[in-house]
Every structure is written in C-alpha cells, then in structure tokens.
C-alpha cells in the first residue's frame, strides 16, 4: 500500500460508537424497567436495545474488517490492537477476580465464622447455634427464604470431561495457529472448526449440568452462598465461552473467505488469546469451585 509505516492511520468519524451507546442505554434501561415491574415497556426496550447493540457490533467490526482487508492498517495499528486486546483481557481477569474473591472470602471467613470458628465465634453461639459449617454448604444458617440443595456438584463426571474438552480446544486452536503461520489454510480451518465445535459441546454439557442441578439436585442460584458462587462463577464463565466461540466462529468464516496472511492475522490471535483466557479461568474454576 502507499501508506507506509511512517504514516499514522486516523479513522474517519464514525457513528457506530454512538449507536452502540444508544443500544446499551436501551438494553440496560429496559432491563431495569423489567426488573421493577414494568414488564411490557421494559422487555420492548430491552429487545430493541439488544438488536441495536448486535447491529452495532456487526457494523463496527464489519468496518474494521473492511479497512483491514483494504490494507489500511500498518504495523502501528496492529500494535495498538494488540495492546488494546491484551488490556481488555486483563480487565476481564479483574472482573472474575471479584467473584473468586467472594468465594475465597466466604469459604475462609464468613462460613467458618457462622459455624463458630475463628475470630467471631460468638456469632455462632448467639445467632446461629444450630448451624454447622461445611463446604459445599448445603445446610444454611436460615433456609426459610432459600431453596435447600440436596446435593453438591461432583468434580468427577461432567466437569472433568469439560475440563478435558476445554484443554483440548486450547490445543486445537494452537494447531490452527501453526496452520495460519505456515500458510496451511486447510489446517487453519480444520483447527478453528474443531475449536468452535469443542466450545459448543462444552456449552451444551454445561447446560445439561445446570439442568440437572436445578431439577435433580435442587441446587439453584437461591440455594445459599454455595449455589450463588457456583452459578455466578460458572455462569459468567459460560457466557465468556460463548463470546469466545462466536469470535472464533467469525474468524473461521473469514478464514474460509480467504482473509488473513501468515504474517497478518491479528483477529485470529485476538480470538485465540481470548480463548486461552477463558481456558485458564476454567482451570481456576475447576480447582476452586469443583475440587476444593
């Protein structure tokens, strides 16, 4: 291209950011209305917001893809995208940290205190004499406003299978990366396809696990702190798997269409970084939520 590295790329004005803000505004405002007994207007605004937001994502990323394929991006833009994605992933790590922190806190402080050990022993004696601290916490201090779970999650079985699935999806995406770097498009497409498929299986299995939890085990969001931490952590993780799989899916379609070169394929790398991040979070989850 004529624009060599000595030139910076500054994009033209764009309406997508504003559209995105309007979309999120409708989405969040609508959800808030829905939650406060304004169901009709709320769900309408939510739906519209969601549509606008998804439209924005398609439009914005479409523009970026077009610019990229049009040869607009030099190494500097590539560098900006890399830093941007890396720090975005870091912010996601910190989001999960809040929930991991909560899990750590209840297991090491709140539940033992309620059960009479540690610094606040009197709490047990005076307020919850009948309560016995265990983990997973099935017998609650006061279950009158919560559902009582019959059974906790087992690490063996589905979660272990899911761990294997995610780990192997990490391998397949790396294999695809080798493919793209050495110009083997078939390997790239196969690797990506496998990864997306593994991601989909993971989500399917997790949905199955949730179903069992809600029906057979009576383990729910409302089953006290064990259910709360379990579903929030695995739920947000699942949502991230979904996002990652969609990203990889888009990259897959682009690969099929012949985008990317052995040296120029940031979108692929961004999606695969994200995938590895989701992978690592799962390992943390598997250890702290299921095993310990």
């Amino acid at each position: 291209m004529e624009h060599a590295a000595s030139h910076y790329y500054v994009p033209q004005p764009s309406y997508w950011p504003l559209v995105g803000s309007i979309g999120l505004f409708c989405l969040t405002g609508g959800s808030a209305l829905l939650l406060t007994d304004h169901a009709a207007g709320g769900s309408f605004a939510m739906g519209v917001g969601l549509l606008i937001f998804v439209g924005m994502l398609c439009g914005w990323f479409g523009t970026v893809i077009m610019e990229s394929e049009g040869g607009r991006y030099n190494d500097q833009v590539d560098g900006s995208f890399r830093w941007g994605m890396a720090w975005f992933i870091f912010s996601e790590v910190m989001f999960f940290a809040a929930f991991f922190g909560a899990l750590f806190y209840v297991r090491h402080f709140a539940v033992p205190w309620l059960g009479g050990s540690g610094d606040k022993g009197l709490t047990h004696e005076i307020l919850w004499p009948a309560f016995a601290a265990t983990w997973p916490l099935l017998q609650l201090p006061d279950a009158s406003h919560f559902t009582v779970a019959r059974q906790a999650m087992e690490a063996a079985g589905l979660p272990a299978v899911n761990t294997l699935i995610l780990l192997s999806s990490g391998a397949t995406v790396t294999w695809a990366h080798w493919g793209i770097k050495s110009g083997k498009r078939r390997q790239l497409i196969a690797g990506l396809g496998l990864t997306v498929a593994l991601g989909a299986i993971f989500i399917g299995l997790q949905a199955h696990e949730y179903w069992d939890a809600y029906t057979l085990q009576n383990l729910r969001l409302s089953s006290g702190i064990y259910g709360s931490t379990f579903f929030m952590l695995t739920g947000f993780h699942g949502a991230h798997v979904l996002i990652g799989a969609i990203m990889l899916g888009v990259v897959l379609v682009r690969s099929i269409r012949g985008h990317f070169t052995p040296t120029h394929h940031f979108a692929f790398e961004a999606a695969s970084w994200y995938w590895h991040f989701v992978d690592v979070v799962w390992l943390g989850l598997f250890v702290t939520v299921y095993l310990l």
Partner: protein
Amino acid sequence: MESTFPEQIRKLALALACMLATREVWADYKLNLTEGVTSISREAYRLHMLALWICVVIAIVVFGAMAWSIYHHRKSRGAVAASFHDNTKVEIAWTIVPFLILVVLAIPATNALIAMNDTSNADLTIKITGLQWRWRYDYLKEDISFVSNLDDKSAAAAKQGSGIDPRTVEHYLLNVDNPVVVPVGKKVRFLLNASDVIHSWWVPDLGFKKDAIPGFVNEIWARVDTPGTYRGQCTELCGVGHGFMPIVLIAMNEPEYLVWLAQQHAASAKARAGGDRTWTREELLAKGDEVYAKNCAACHQPNGEGIPGAFKALKGSPVVKGPLAEHIDRVMNGKPGTAMPPFAAQLSDAEIAAVITHERNAWGNNTGDLVQPAQIKAARK
C-alpha cells in the same frame, strides 16, 4: 416557598447574627477530640494528639520551606533559576525520615489496638441490637431487655415544619427514652449485632465505635471510670432515621446500679402483666397511636400514606383491610427482602395488638376490628 426572597435574606441574616452571637451555641462547644472516660478513649486521645502535633511540625517545615522559596526565589525579586534537578542523598533522607516517623506512630497504635481487642474477663455482658431506628439492649444473664428510642421532645421538634426551635429542646437529638446503664469500674463487654441493616454504635466518651452487622456479632469492651451521662449516635448510614437514633449511656456507682437493676426487673414484670387482660377499644387505640408514632411513622408516615416507591401506604392497604392473620404476621415477622422489619421481638403482645388495632381503624381504614394481646400471644406460638 412561602416567604419572599428579600424577607428570606433578612431572616437569614437575623438567624446568622443570633446564632453566632448566642452563648449557648458555643457553650458546650469543643474543637478537639474528647478525652473520654475509659482507658481506651484516653489512649485514642493521646495517639490523636501525637499524630496531630507530628503533622503540624511537618507542615511547618514543609510549608515553611515553600514560603521561603516563594518569597526569596521569585522572579520579581530578581531570582535567577538554578538548574539542579537531582540529589540522591537528600532524596534518601526524605524517604527514610518520614518512615521513621511512621514507626514512632505505629508502636503506640499497635499497643492500643491489642488492648482494645481483649474482651476477656468481663464482669457484665450487654447485647446491643441495631434496628431501624432504635437500639435494643439485652443484659445477658439478667433477663432484662428494653428498646431505646429517640425521646419524644426531640422527635416532635425534628419533624419537618414542626415550628419548634431545636435550641429550646434539651439535648436535642441526643436524648432517649430508655438509656443503657452500666456500673462504674466494671469491665463491660458489648456484643453488637443488627436485625435489618448495618448500624454503628458510638459513644465518643468510651473511645470507640463498632458496627452492628446483621447476622454477625462484634465484640468490644469498656470500663467507665467516672459516673455520668454519656451521649452518642448511630454512625453508619441506615436509612431515613439514621440521624435520629441516639445513644445515652449512664454510668452509675455500684449501689445505684443495683437499684436500677431491681427497678428494671419490676418494670419488665409489669409490662408482661398487661398482656394477660382484655383491653378496651379506647385503651387499644390510645396505646396504638403511641406505638405507631414511635415505631412505624418514620416509614409509613404519620398520615399512613407511606412514601411512594419506598414505603407502602397503610391507608387503604389490602393487608391492613384484609384478613387479620396476614396483618398480624406482617407486623410480627416483617417482610424479608424489604425494609419492613419484624417486630415480634421488639414489641410486647399488648403493643402489637394495639398498633394493629390502630392501623385497622385510622385514616379511613374503618374496619372496626379490635385485636387483643391474647391473640398476639397465640400467634407467637
């Protein structure tokens, strides 16, 4: 706004002149932290003064140096800028010296903290429960318990547009109906918890505040060494009544304290007695009006209309006009997940019966129902 603008300015100026001039405003006025009447509070006071003076000295040195160079090194005086921009020795010095100062502060602070945490060997234990917006005191092992509310005079003056000048009310917002009483010279252990939201129990003269947290118990102790009346307030935002839940603690010499204990035992026996007889309509309505004003009006408002979106109206409420059982249940057990607290433990049978009778007959809810203490007693089982 009723009054016109110039009139307001005049009022303002007048009020200003009056206030800044009157002696009673500044009379019991303090600039500094209170020294208090416990070893803890004196420790805190000493530490406060130490830190304060250290800061003052540092400030004088730093701002002094600044003032010196502002004066002497200004361009208008012909100062020519030097060009130095580093000096490792100086920089090391002004890193280490502040650190050493901090060590000087940290040592007494550590000792004080350790002493405050030692609640062992207490002579007496009082459990304190924070409620929206009152305190409940249980003397463990003594079978005495009572609720402590903002006193009526303050409550009346504190109403918006009451027309009562707070300055005419003695101990405005710092007075209660039932103060908590402790013996002088004894180590008293306080156990804090709350039934609805977080409150915080603070009497400055005791030298600490501690949060009262629903579902957990916190401990703290005090040994008051001078008889007297000590006042404090709730210090954790707990809703609309947060500014209106004071604490009054009276420290008495042992003999007087024993007399007070005996009175309390007698009083609680009497309170229980009222629950056994049948009350007349007038008695119920009078008592109910009183209980309502004290316990319910803060949320549901004196006119029973509540605050839309926050506190439901009782006027015309389906619960109040509906089946009695549900109404009793709502008042005794509250509604979890909302601000409506359970009153079963706070109010006696007679009080609950009376307030329900009141609600069912006030503000045009004329159901005509009467509720007797015996019905509440039955509902407790």
